[in-house]
């Protein structure tokens, strides 16, 4: 993946807007969408909004024809603001409060995901309005983030749950699975698809939707297979799915990760036990939160050349865990020098915190096409108005 900004342009953005920055390139996002479409022909995509819940991402993906995978009222409000057709949304959180169901119905989203009998029972009173996907768990052994432990019914429970739903008059319209995030191989997808085809063929109720989840890997380490290579066995497996079944997927990381880079700057340096420590103005409590929550190792570089020496990159907070990279070979840096993080779109800003009351990175949006066709090259979102929690004071 070649960087979408030249070094000169990166320096210019930092000079102009300061740091830390996150830079989103909407053209890159479009390219990712197209490449996934080519790799998975006939599959409808529902972007997992949680990966990078940004208005420009949603706006761009609406224009690409994407649907949206939602899991909370906040995400519903965000897509509603963009006038997303509710029919092009699915609510995928397997565990919901009654209010979550009602909020989604009031928006007009009628597709929900369940994976157990108690969750199924919550839909009894809405049974005439909804269509459910039953989430089945298949363990993906190569996924970086395993999602099969927390959610999903066992494959051998699926038919029983479908039967129970039928008894309660609730419409289960299909199956879904999520083998995990950033899978190294497509084996788990292929295996899950084959199991789902088995379940579908044994079900008395016609199951018309197969949701193959996400997990499509991006190239953090330079050694990841291309999306075409990754999806080819998946496409082969999908050929056995009956033609009247809608096949959908919930890509998040794959679409946004390569579309965002981070720009942070060195604000201090120290030599500790023979190693050079650089203190950046962004860290694991900010844009690099995915180092902790997402187990991601982002490609990092500087704009400097020279002899590389073992270094440590630390974040700006007072906490000792706030280290972005240990033992990374970097040229000697000075205060004010920039450190660039590539592939920084997925689960970065989304999981950033306000710890130490530090301001989050400013988002710079490039090449966004507005709905009416006009294109503005830069949008700047400082996130300053964003407040995450409300306080209830009781007297």
């Amino acid at each position, binding site marked *: 993946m070649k960087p979408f900004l030249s070094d000169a342009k990166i320096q210019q953005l930092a000079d102009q807007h300061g740091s830390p920055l996150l830079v989103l390139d909407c053209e890159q996002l479009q390219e990712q969408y197209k490449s996934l479409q080519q790799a998975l022909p006939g599959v409808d995509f529902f972007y997992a909004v949680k990966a990078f819940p940004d208005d420009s991402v949603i706006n761009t993906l609406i224009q690409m024809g994407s649907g949206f995978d939602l899991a909370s*009222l906040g995400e519903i409000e965000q897509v*509603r603001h963009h006038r997303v*057709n*509710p*029919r092009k949304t699915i609510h995928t959180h397997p565990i919901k409060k009654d209010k979550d169901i*009602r*909020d989604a*119905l*009031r*928006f*007009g*989203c*009628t*597709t929900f995901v369940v994976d157990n009998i108690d969750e199924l029972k919550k839909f009894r*009173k*809405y049974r*005439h*309005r*909804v*269509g459910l996907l039953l989430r089945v768990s298949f363990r993906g052994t190569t996924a970086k983030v395993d999602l099969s432990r927390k959610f999903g019914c066992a494959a051998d429970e699926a038919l029983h749950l479908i039967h129970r739903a039928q008894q309660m008059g609730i*419409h289960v*319209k299909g199956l879904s699975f999520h083998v995990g995030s950033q899978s190294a191989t497509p084996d788990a997808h292929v295996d899950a698809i084959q199991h789902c085809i088995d379940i579908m063929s044994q079900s008395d109720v016609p199951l018309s939707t197969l949701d193959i989840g996400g997990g499509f890997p991006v190239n953090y380490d330079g050694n990841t297979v291309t999306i075409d290579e990754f999806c080819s066995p998946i496409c082969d497996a999908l050929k056995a799915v009956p033609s009247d079944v809608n096949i959908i997927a919930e890509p998040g990381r794959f679409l946004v990760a390569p579309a965002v880079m981070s720009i942070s700057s060195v604000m201090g340096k120290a030599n500790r036990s023979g190693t050079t420590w650089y203190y950046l103005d962004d860290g694991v409590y900010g844009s690099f939160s995915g180092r902790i929550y997402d187990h991601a190792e982002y490609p990092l570089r500087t704009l400097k050349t020279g002899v590389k020496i073992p270094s440590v990159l630390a974040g700006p907070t007072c906490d000792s865990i706030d280290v972005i990279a240990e033992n990374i070979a970097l040229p000697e840096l000075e205060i004010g020098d920039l450190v660039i993080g590539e592939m920084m779109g997925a689960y970065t800003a989304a999981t950033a915190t306000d710890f130490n009351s530090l301001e989050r990175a400013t988002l710079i949006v490039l090449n966004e096409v507005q709905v009416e066709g006009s294109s503005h090259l830069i949008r700047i979102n400082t996130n300053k108005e964003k407040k995450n929690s409300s306080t209830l004071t009781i007297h």
Partner: protein
Amino acid sequence: MSKFWSETLYDAYGQSFSVDKVYFESKTEHQHLMIFHNAMFGRVMVLDGIVQTTEKDEFIYHEMLTHVPLFAHGKAKRVLIIGGGDGGILREVCKHKSVEHVTQVEIDQAVIDMAKAYLPGHSNGAFDDPRANIVIDDGIKFVTETNEKFDVIISDSTDPIGPGEVLFTSTFYDGCKRCLNEGGILATQNGVAFMQPDEVTTTAKRLAPVFKDHSFYGAAVPTYVGGIMTFAWGSDNSEYRNIDVATLQQRFEAANINTNYYNPEVHQASFALPQYIINALKDIES
């Protein structure tokens, strides 16, 4: 190609409207309201993805929810409307010259303002009728707290998911009972039973302990898809459901009201329920 708006009431079924022009759209406190023009139904008002009223077929709903209880009662002088911010019920009530006073309790002034501006035919000037007292308040709070009494209460609410939810509760029905004059009638919007049979059975269960006589009557409103819309009925006087056509005809003629759906025969026939509703109601008794 015109754009289409699709109702999202059901996952597996739905109606779509071509949208020729959007007149109004607002999103307030988790409530999304839109009014647009459709070639077949005129102006269409939608709330949270569900059709609330259209210019073309609103008369069926408003006439049946108003004239059935008023003519069945025959001597109603004081009427209470809960909800009904578009003014359609108020317009029909005000056609009854014998009605001396009507209080309308609507939770949201914005709905009234919007309807006056974009659906003026619904109220047709009724908000200015000197007999009308418009109160902006929560309907359930009003019926629980007011000292006023009424002969007929009409609940013209939204669907049970959303702000109208409380208007389908036992507390609301109890409140209505306490501010009805002896022998008064409660009539409420109660959904399309074929599509959502639970709404009928739930209401029946909740009305049973409150009124000596409860039932439903129906009318087919094209944009409330799925067969007849049901209206719930509660009163301590079971005679009101069985007024003979000749008596209704006398009252109708004396009132000298022009209607487009309601007439005494339709009135009486509307209490005849299809067997699937009768069966559903039997199931809860057994």
